[in-house]
Structure formats: C-alpha cells, structure tokens
C-alpha cells in the first residue's frame, strides 16, 4: 500500500468509525431538541461539541447521522451502478456490431442530457424522503461512465488468445463474460467505482440541498448546508460544520480513487 492509498483510506476509516459510533458516545440524538441551547456555537458544557442549529438540535449528532446516510448511500448506489455498468459494457463490447452500436447509442443519448434532469425526474417518482428509492434513482444514472469504460476494455479483450480459446472450447457467452472478461476489467472497475462514490454522495447532497432528497427529521449534509447558508451571518458554524465534513469526505474519496487508478488502472498491467 502506497501512502497515496493509505492516507485517504485512514481518513475515511476514521470518519466512518466516528459516524457509526456517534450514537453511543454523543449525549444527543439527531432529532432531540435542546430548548436551553438554540443556535449556540460549539461548546463542551452541554455536550454540543459542534454547536446546535436554530431549533436546538445538536450539530455533531446531525452531522454524523448525515455522514452515515451519505456513506451508506454512496456505497450502495455505487454497487448498483457498477452492476449495471459492468453488465451493460461487457455485453455491448462482447456482442459487437449492431447490438453494441444500439446499446452505446442509448448511453450517448442519456449522457447528452444533464444528469440532474434524470435524477430530478426519477426523484419525483419516489415518495419524498425514501432512502431506498433515492439510491435507486442515483444508481440508475451513475452507470453510464462505467459502461463506457468496461466496453472499451472488453473490445480489446475480446480478441485476446485466452478469450478465443474459451470460445473455441465451447464456453457459453455468460461464462466467458463472467470468468474471462469481468476479472480482467476488475482493476479499472474498482478504481472508477471509488471515484463514483464521491459523485453519488454529491448527488445525494445536491438533491437534499434543493429539498428533493433526505427529508426531516433526518439530515443530509446537503440539507444541513442549505440550512446553514441561511443562518451564516449570525451562526457561521451551522454552515462550516457540514461543509467541512462534506469537503473532507469528498477529498478523501477522490484521493483514494486517484491513488487506486494510478496503481490498478489500465496501462499498469
């Protein structure tokens, strides 16, 4: 493990550990209201380590709950988009010809539209605030880049000797895809999946910022930033806490993805 991979991994592990453990050592829960301390700056006396919001809810507890949502959503939605993207790309690249052209034309069309449209349309489909639905919506559009990358790699793998040998010895197409193609693209897939996670997290925050994502009483970093931005003149910590958390998480994921890509990406094999 190079430092480029180890350090961001450490930061992420730490963030995740604190976020997961927070309910046990924080004296406040994400929706508890402290009537005595409304909009107070960070302080230790009442256990509001990062201050409270306008209603008196603890920002540490809310921030950590938002972090849990972001991480869970990021990983789950990325898994979905990896699954769709790898299948789509491998099938298109392996089939070639018209099937390939039609499948990639579809990707091109969806690609040409701003992501937001699709996510906003899909998010209207769901009852507001449903997490499961939210990650379906995000996962459903996150697979496009993955499909393109996997297809490109499959195209070059298709004519390699070991694939030809598998075809000649009568292995069926799903078997070839699963046993010979997918393992050979996995390095690239892992690297890009790591870069997909921060994008998913951004999407979720973006939707929540606009009021389309996670709903009260639950918090998302996006909705916390939105609330904080409205109060920033009198209570800047309400903005700085969620903005800082989001920044740290995004930077760490991006650094990790870049580090992995440098090691596992194409051209390194």
């Amino acid at each position, binding site marked *: 493990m190079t430092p480029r991979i180890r350090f961001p991994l450490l930061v992420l592990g730490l963030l995740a550990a604190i976020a997961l453990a927070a309910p046990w050592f924080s004296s406040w829960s994400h929706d508890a209201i402290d009537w005595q301390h409304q909009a107070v700056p960070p302080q230790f006396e009442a256990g509001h380590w990062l201050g409270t919001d306008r209603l008196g809810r603890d920002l540490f507890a809310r921030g950590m709950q938002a972090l849990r949502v972001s991480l869970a959503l990021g990983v789950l939605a990325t898994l979905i988009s990896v699954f769709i993207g790898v299948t789509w790309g491998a099938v298109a690249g392996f089939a070639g010809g018209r099937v390939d052209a039609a499948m990639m034309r579809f990707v091109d069309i969806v690609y*040409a539209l701003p992501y937001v449209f699709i996510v906003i*349309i899909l998010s209207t489909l769901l*009852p507001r605030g449903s997490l499961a639905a939210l990650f379906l919506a995000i996962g459903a559009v996150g697979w496009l880049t993955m499909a393109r990358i996997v297809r490109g790699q499959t195209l070059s793998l298709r004519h390699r000797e070991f694939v030809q040998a598998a075809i000649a010895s009568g292995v069926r197409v799903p078997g070839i895809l699963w046993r010979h193609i997918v393992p050979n693209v996995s390095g690239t897939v892992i690297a890009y999946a790591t870069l997909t996670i921060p994008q998913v997290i951004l999407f979720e*925050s973006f939707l929540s*910022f*606009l009021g389309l994502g996670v709903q009260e009483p639950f918090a998302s970093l996006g909705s916390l930033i939105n609330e904080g931005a409205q109060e920033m003149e009198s209570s800047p910590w309400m903005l700085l806490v969620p903005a800082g958390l989001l920044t740290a998480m995004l930077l760490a994921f991006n650094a990790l993805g870049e580090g992995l890509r440098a090691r596992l990406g194409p051209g390194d094999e």
Partner: protein
Amino acid sequence: MLGYALRRVVGLVPTLFVLVTLSFFVIRLAPGGPFDQEQVLSPAIRANLDAAYGLDQPLLVQYGRYLGALVRGDLGPSLRFKDYRVHELIGRGLPLSLTIGLAAAALAVVVGVWLGALAAWRPESRVLKGLINLSLLGVILPGFVVGPLLALVFGIYWPVFRIAGYEPGEVSFLVLPVITLALPVAAYVARMMRDSMREVLRSNYIRTARAKGLPARVVLWRHALRPSLIPVVSYLGPAVAFIITGSLVVEAVFGLPGSGRYLVQGAIDRDYPLVMGMILVYGVVTLVCNLLADLLYGWLDPRVRPA
C-alpha cells in the same frame, strides 16, 4: 460544412423526442398529483380541475395533446401558478439564468485557457503549479459548498459584493454567483489546457517558430494556441451541462430569480407542464451548445472536418 451543420440540427429532433417522451411518462408515473394539498379537495372540485386541464383523459391522449401543442410552440399552462402559461414563467427567469451561465462559461474558458497555457509555458513556476493544484479543490467541491463560503467571506466578513435582496440590473449581485459557477469549469479547463499545450509545445513546428526568432508571445498565442484548444472544445459540451446543473444551485444559494427554481419547484409540486417545459428548454440549450462545440471542433481541427 453548412450541409453538415443542417444535418446535425435535424439530428437533434429524435433526441428531443426521446427526451420529451421519456420524461412525460416517467413524471406521470410519480405518485401524487398537482392538486394534492394540505386541505383535501372535494371530489367534485377535483374532477372539475382534472377535466379543465385534461388530466382526466387517458395518458396516451394527454401525450398526444401535449405533443400537438408542442409542435405549435405551446408549452401548456402551469398547474400551480394560476393563470400563467409555462412559457411566461420560464421566459421571466431565463434571461437572468442565461446571463449568469454565459458569463460563467466565458470566464471559465478565458481564465482556464490562460492559466493552463502559462503553466505549460513555464513548467518551473511554483505559483502556477500551486494555482493548478489548488484548482483541484474547485473541481471536487460542489457549488453549494463553494457558493455559501464565498458569500460568507466576500459578502459578510469582507463585504465587497452584495449577496442578498437581488435588484435587477445590479452587477454587484452577480459577481459571486458567476465565480461560483465558473470555478470548477475553469479548473478543469486549466488542467486540460496545460496538458495539451505541453504536448503541442514539443512539436517540430513550434521549435521552428522559436528557432526563427519569433517572440514568445507570438509562438504561444498564435502558433500553439489553436491546436491546444481542441480537447478544451470537446469538453465544452459537458461543461454546459455542468453549468446548467450548477445554476440550479447557485440561483438557490444567492437567491436569484432565475428559471432554475421552476424545475425544482415544479418537481416538488408535480406541476407536470412546468417540469416538462423546463426539461425541454434546458435540454435544447444543452444540445445546441453540444452542437456548437462540435462545429467549433471541425473549425479548429481540419482533420475531423467532414468532406
């Protein structure tokens, strides 16, 4: 060239058709309707409302009617903003949104190209290297983090620009939104420009230009610039999509009365024609900008010009 451009314009029609069809049916699948309110309407009133807007018809009939109206250039009535047509609502906000978006795109390209070219020209400069590395932050951080932070620093702690209570025509309100929008694109363009310019500067004709004693300024901006711009131009399409996405956020952050809020509000309110209208208008803007980028590409690089 003209024939090619025309063919491409015609090629937009099926893409738009797919966009309209997909979004029409997906939005209708969504639970809830435009007339769901806190106060439940009596069935008779509800039925009258549905009939007045044609919502009581089968979905396919509604779809046909919508397409028919669209061909005549009618985006339909808004269901939530009473007595407003969708084109009136969008028309009110769009000029401001376009102004911010175009200003941001122009700023991003000029700053990005300039910074990237200089960084390629002087690879030893620490300042330029630092700026390019710092710009990575601009790529990673979303507008809804950068925007409020800029507003906090340059609007409150050090009030150089005005941030709240937008007054039309007052440029001071638009500076921070434009910078917020332009930042990630400029950062991306700068990195891309640096890499492509570095490549170009190694080529033989640049060495010739230098060898015959042309001043650095001429070599850089007249000889090396045009071929280096090619990857930047191919990024302009995605950049436009990026700026449109960003403008939704920036308008919300800085409280600007652009058209972006209609997309979000329309989606929340299930105001079907309003959402459709916004998707269509922003979709056309995106596709046209992509097309312009492609045509510009052909102009910059004769090798891809269609015969």
